[in-house]
C-alpha cells in the first residue's frame, strides 16, 4: 500500500485507509497526476455510455423500416452521442494525458495553478452530469421534452422555443458551457505551465513534441471555445429573455449561429486531433528507435495547423449558399491545412524509415492511425471541393469521413497513449496478448462500420434519418455497418478486461519499460507525488538518451 507521497504505509495503517479516506483524498486532490487519471477515467466512462448510444443507433438502422427506436428517441441518442464524444470523451481524455504528462515531461512538480486544475476537472465532470441529467430531468420547469434532440451543433432555428420547447436544449447549452469553463481553465493552466515552469535547460526548442502540441492546443482552446460560450449565452438570452439573436422572424440570423458554432467547431477538430498527433509523435520515435524526423518542421507544422484551423470553418457551411469568393477562400484554406498535416504524416514515416521498428501495442495503434488518418484526410480534401460537398453534404459520406478522423485519428491514439503510459501511471504492463485481440477485432470492426458508410453516402443516404424504405440499395450496407459495431464492442470488451486484469496481475513495469527518452521515464512507476527528488537539468530533446549514452549525447547534434 502506498500513501500519497509514495511511501510505504505499515500494514495496520494501510488497513485503516478505507474507501472513504481514499475517496476524500481523490476528491480534494490538487495533484496533476491524480487529476489526470480522473480526467481519463471519467472520459472512458462517458466513452462507454456514448458507445452504447451509438450501438442503439446502429441497431435501429440495421434494417429498413425498423421500429426498435422511435424518431424522437433516435434524435436524442444521436445528439447526446455526438455531444458526449466531442465534449466529454475526446477533450477530457486528452486533458487527462496533458495533466498527467506535461509536468513530468518538462521536469516540473505540478501544473502552474493546481487548485484551478482541480476546479477545471470538477467543472467538466459536473457539466457532463448536468448534461446527462437531461435524460431524467429534461422536463424541467415547463413539463415537456427530455434529452437534447437538436444535433451536436444545435442549429438555429431548431433551437428556438417554438421548435424546441421545454428545457432539453437548455441542458445542451448549460452542460457544455459549464464543461467549457473547465476546459478554459485547464487550457490556461497548460499554457502557463509550459511557458513558465520548464526545468533548467529545456528551451522551447528542446521540449518534447507532446508538450509543443499541447501548448498549441491550449492556445486553440482559449481562442476557439470563447465564441461558442458567447453564442450559447446569446442562445440562452433568446430562449429565456426573448432576445432575437438567432430568431430569423424578428431580424435575427440563423446563419450567424452557424458561423459562431463552426468558428469554434472546426478548430475543435484540431483541438481533438493535435493531442492525438502528440501521442503519435512520442510513440513513433521510441518504437522506431530513432529520434523524430524533422523536429523543427513538426513544430512549424503544428503551429501552422493551429493558425490555419482558425480560418477554415465555413467549409461546414457550403450548402448554406455562401458567395463564390467566400466558397473559394474556404476551399483554399481547407486544402492548405492538408499541407502541414501531410508534413506530419511524412515525418512520422520518415522516423520509421530505416528504424528498428518494434511493433508493440502503442506502435501498432499508431501504424493503424496512419492508415486510417490518410483516408480521413483524402475524404476531407474531397469534401473541401464545393461541388463535391454540395452533392454529399449531410450524407453518410460525411459521417464516415469524420468518424475516420475522430476514431481512426483520435481514438486510435488514445489507445496508443494508454498502452504507452499505462505502465508509468500504474506500475503494471498491459497484456500484449489481450491488447492484440483488442487491436485486431476493433480495427476490423471500425473498418467494416465506417469504411462501408462511405458507400451509403455515395448512394445518397442522408444522415440523421431514423429509418429508411427498403430497396434503395442501402439495406445490405446498413446491415454490414451495424454488424461492424458488434466487432468494435467486442474489441472494447477486450480492452476493459485487459485494463482490469493488468491492474491486478499485470507484469511489473519498472521505471522505463520501453527504453524511452523523455523525462517521465526517469522517475518511478507510478511517480511519487513530487515527481522528481531533484528538478532535472536537460541538455537535449532526449535527456534520457544523453544519460544512457554519455559518449554520444544528442546535444552534440542539436
Amino acid at each position: 500500500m502506498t500513501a500519497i507521497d509514495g511511501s510505504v504505509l505499515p500494514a495496520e495503517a494501510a488497513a485503516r485507509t478505507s474507501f472513504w479516506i481514499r475517496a476524500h483524498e481523490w476528491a480534494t486532490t490538487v495533484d496533476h497526476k491524480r487529476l489526470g487519471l480522473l480526467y481519463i477515467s471519467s472520459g472512458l466512462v462517458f466513452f462507454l455510455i456514448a458507445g452504447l448510444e451509438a450501438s442503439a443507433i446502429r441497431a435501429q438502422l440495421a434494417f429498413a423500416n425498423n421500429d426498435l427506436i422511435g424518431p424522437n428517441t433516435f434524435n436524442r441518442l444521436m445528439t447526446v452521442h455526438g455531444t458526449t464524444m466531442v465534449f466529454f470523451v475526446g477533450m477530457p481524455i486528452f486533458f487527462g494525458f496533458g495533466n498527467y504528462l506535461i509536468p513530468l515531461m518538462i521536469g516540473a512538480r505540478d501544473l502552474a495553478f493546481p487548485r484551478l486544475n482541480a476546479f477545471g476537472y470538477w467543472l467538466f465532470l459536473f457539466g457532463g452530469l448536468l448534461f446527462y441529467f437531461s435524460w431524467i430531468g429534461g422536463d424541467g420547469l415547463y413539463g415537456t421534452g427530455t434529452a437534447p434532440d437538436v444535433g451536436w451543433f444545435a442549429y438555429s432555428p431548431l433551437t428556438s422555443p417554438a421548435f424546441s420547447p421545454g428545457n432539453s436544449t437548455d441542458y445542451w447549452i448549460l452542460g457544455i458551457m459549464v464543461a467549457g469553463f473547465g476546459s478554459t481553465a485547464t487550457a490556461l493552466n497548460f499554457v502557463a505551465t509550459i511557458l513558465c515552469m520548464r526545468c533548467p535547460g529545456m528551451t522551447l526548442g528542446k521540449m518534447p513534441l507532446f508538450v509543443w502540441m499541447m501548448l498549441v492546443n491550449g492556445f486553440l482552446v482559449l481562442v476557439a471555445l470563447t465564441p461558442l460560450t458567447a453564442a450559447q449565452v446569446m442562445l440562452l438570452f433568446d430562449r429565456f429573455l426573448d432576445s432575437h439573436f438567432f430568431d430569423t422572424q424578428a431580424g435575427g440570423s440563423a446563419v450567424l449561429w452557424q458561423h459562431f458554432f463552426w468558428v469554434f467547431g472546426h478548430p475543435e477538430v484540431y483541438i481533438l486531433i493535435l493531442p492525438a498527433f502528440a501521442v503519435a509523435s512520442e510513440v513513433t520515435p521510441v518504437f522506431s528507435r530513432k529520434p523524430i524526423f524533422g523536429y523543427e518542421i513538426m513544430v512549424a507544422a503544428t503551429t501552422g495547423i493551429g493558425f490555419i484551423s482558425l480560418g477554415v470553418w465555413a467549409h461546414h457551411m457550403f450548402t448554406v449558399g455562401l458567395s463564390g469568393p467566400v466558397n473559394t477562400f474556404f476551399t483554399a484554406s481547407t486544402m492548405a491545412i492538408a499541407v502541414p498535416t501531410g508534413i506530419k504524416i511524412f515525418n512520422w514515416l520518415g522516423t520509421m524509415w530505416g528504424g528498428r521498428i518494434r511493433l508493440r501495442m502503442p506502435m501498432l495503434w499508431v501504424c493503424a492511425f496512419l492508415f486510417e488518418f490518410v483516408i480521413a484526410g483524402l475524404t476531407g480534401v474531397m469534401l473541401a471541393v464545393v461541388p463535391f460537398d454540395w452533392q454529399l453534404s449531410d450524407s453518410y459520406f460525411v459521417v464516415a469521413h469524420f468518424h475516420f478522423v475522430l476514431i481512426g485519428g483520435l481514438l486510435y491514439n488514445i489507445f496508443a497513449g494508454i498502452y504507452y503510459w499505462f505502465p508509468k501511471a500504474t506500475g503494471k504492463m498491459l497484456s500484449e496478448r489481450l491488447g492484440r485481440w483488442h487491436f485486431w477485432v476493433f480495427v476490423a470492426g471500425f473498418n467494416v462500420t465506417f469504411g462501408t458508410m462511405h458507400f451509403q453516402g455515395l448512394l445518397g443516404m442522408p444522415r440523421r434519418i431514423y429509418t429508411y424504405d427498403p430497396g434503395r440499395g442501402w439495406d445490405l450496407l446498413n446491415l454490414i455497418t451495424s454488424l461492424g459495431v458488434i466487432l468494435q464492442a467486442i474489441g472494447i470488451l477486450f480492452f476493459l478486461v485487459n485494463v482490469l486484469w493488468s491492474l491486478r496481475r499485470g507484469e511489473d513495469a519498472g521505471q522505463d519499460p520501453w527504453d524511452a527518452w523523455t523525462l517521465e521515464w526517469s522517475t518511478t512507476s507510478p511517480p511519487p507525488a513530487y515527481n522528481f527528488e531533484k528538478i532535472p537539468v536537460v541538455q537535449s530533446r532526449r535527456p534520457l538518451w544523453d544519460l544512457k549514452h554519455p559518449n554520444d549525447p544528442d546535444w552534440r547534434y542539436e
Partner: protein
Amino acid sequence: MAAEREAKHAGEGGIELPSPTPWPLLAAFGMTLGFAGLVTHPIVSMVGGVCFLFGGVGWWREVLPVAHEIEVPLAAPARRARLVEPVPETVDHLELGEGGHRMRLPTHVFPLSAGIRGGIAGGIAMAALAELYGLLVHQSLWYPVNLLSAAAIPSLANASTEQLAQFSTEGLLVGVIVHVLFSLLVGLLYAVMLPMFPRHPAILGGIVAPLLWTGLLWTSLGVINPALNERIAWGWFAASQLAFGLAAGFVVSKMERIATLQSAAFAIRAGLELQYDEEGKE
C-alpha cells in the same frame, strides 16, 4: 534560489507541495448548480450560489496571504527512482555518403539560376520541335502557338484548324507568356528535384518525368479540355516534352552544385545566427 530551496528540502527529507483542498470542488459544484437552477428550480440556483460563495471564500483563504502547502516526505530509499545507467553498447553513425546512403536529403542542391537556365534551354528545345510539327503537318508557324493559347482563349478553343494556322496577336502574346512562364517554372522544378534523384538524373529528369507528364495529360485532358484533346498529336507532344526534359535536365545537371545548410543548427538556417568555418570566416 529555486535550486537552494530544492537542496534545503532534499536535505530535510521532504518536498513542499500544494495542500489538498475541497474548495475547488465546492466552487465547481456551486457554479454547476447555479446554472442548473435555470432548468430545474430557482432554489437550486440559490443553493448553488451559496456553495459557490463558500467555495470561493475558502479558496481565497487557501491561497492568500500565503498558499497552503504540505511537506511530502521523500519516499523510502528502496522505492526511489533509480539513476539512469549508461548502456554498454555504442552507437554507430552513418557517415555522409557511406555505402551509397545519404544521411539527409539533399546535401547539395543546384542554385536557382540553374533552374532558370535549364528552363530557357528546355523551352527553346520544346518550341523548336513544336514549330517543326507546325511546319511539317500544318504548314504553319502559328498553329502550335495558337493551340497552346487556346487553353486560355475561348475564341481560339472554338476556332477551326485553318483559323489556328493564321497569325493571331492575342494568340502569340498569350502563347509566349504561357510557354516562357511554364518553361521557367518547370526548369526551377528540375533544379529542385534533380538532387533528390542522385543516381540517374538524366534518365529520371530527361525521359521518365516527361513521359509521366505526357501520360498524365493523355489520360486526363479528355475530361479537362475535350476540344484541346481532339487537336493534340500525342506523338509530337511526347517528343516535345522529351526535348524539354533532356535539354533542361542536361543544362541543370551541368551546373555546379552548392551545399545546403541541412547539417547546420536551426538558428543558423533560420538566419538568427551566422555560420563560421574553422578559420572563423563567416
